């Protein structure tokens, strides 16, 4: 007859707890205090760190774009243009450089950026000229133009 009750009470929780803890502690070794050594303190901090890293990967894209926009605005401001005017005029000229590259050019290639700013300014003036000389757009008839 085999007595099973004592054996069933003694549960084997697994042979590799130490290695599982080490796998998690390796992500905590650069923390400060006991949370880089003690598993129960480390598990909480490491979970938060992983969650912040996941969220941060999305935020980084937004932050980088904001940074590029700030730099482009600064560069365009040096040449007498606002960021919105600069970007819209370049788009209307069919120049498809993105903000990352424009910020890079503003820093490392000042002559090229100056030419881009001049191009944007010229396109802007041409746009005004097309609108502000008392001509109606094609296909629109108004009493003012007919009177003239």
């Amino acid at each position, binding site marked *: 007859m085999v007595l099973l009750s004592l054996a069933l009470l003694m549960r084997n929780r697994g042979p590799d707890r130490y290695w599982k803890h080490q796998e998690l502690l390796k992500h905590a070794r650069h923390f400060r205090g006991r949370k880089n050594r003690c598993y129960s303190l480390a598990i909480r901090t490491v*979970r*938060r760190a*992983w*969650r912040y*890293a*996941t969220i941060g*990967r999305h935020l980084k894209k937004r932050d980088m774009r904001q940074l590029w926009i700030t730099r482009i605005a600064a560069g365009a401001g040096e040449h007498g243009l606002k960021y919105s005017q600069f970007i819209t005029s370049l788009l209307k*000229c*069919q*120049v*498809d*450089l*993105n903000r*990352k*590259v424009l910020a*890079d*050019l503003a820093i*490392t*290639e000042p*002559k*090229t950026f100056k*030419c*881009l700013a001049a*191009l944007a300014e010229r396109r802007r*003036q*041409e746009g*005004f*000229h097309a609108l*502000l*000389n*008392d001509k109606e757009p094609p296909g629109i008839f108004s009493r*003012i133009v007919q009177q003239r």
Partner: protein
Amino acid sequence: MGAIDALLVQVVYIRPWSTQERSVRVHLSPLLKDGHGGVQPARIGRAVASTIRYRYAAITSLTQPPWKKVILPNPEEEILHHKEVIQQANTMISERDYGRLFAVVQFAARQWKVTAEDLILIEAPLQAECGDRICMEKVLLVGGGNFTLLGRPLLKKDLVRVEATIIEKTETWPKISFHYKARKREQRKHVIATPQTVLRINSIDIAPTLR
């Protein structure tokens, strides 16, 4: 009209401003023979302009539009200027006067500002093998020390040639995507390792002449 005294007045159309406004020195007499004490509008004969009516008005804040007048440069002078610039650029290109060229290239859904001997890390798998030489076709901008060629939006393939070699094809370090809600016993852990390629830009070449 009677005897004339000099009185400088701007002649404007009835509409506050117009590009066809003209300023005319008009002489008026304050006392006209017909007995009117004030300023009379000049009547323009039919031979001059039959459909336009003039009215005298002082120069006010509405005589000029509030925006700056747009003056574009002379088209013929512009054409000459453009020809000069293109000629200068052509001489520079044919004599290889540029030092180190840089290019802006669209590759793997991103734009890269690139020179020769650059290393690029691309977070995408490429179908070519390690050691293959690749030509990047979508070039948006090429520049040297004193000139830049700007594409609208791309430059032609026979104008620029950007060549690169594939050096390495690996995966990223294992990034952990972890979603966790405190005190709710909800967590999801996913380890991501996307493929990466490392390219070395070998050369950027411009064809001898533009157009």
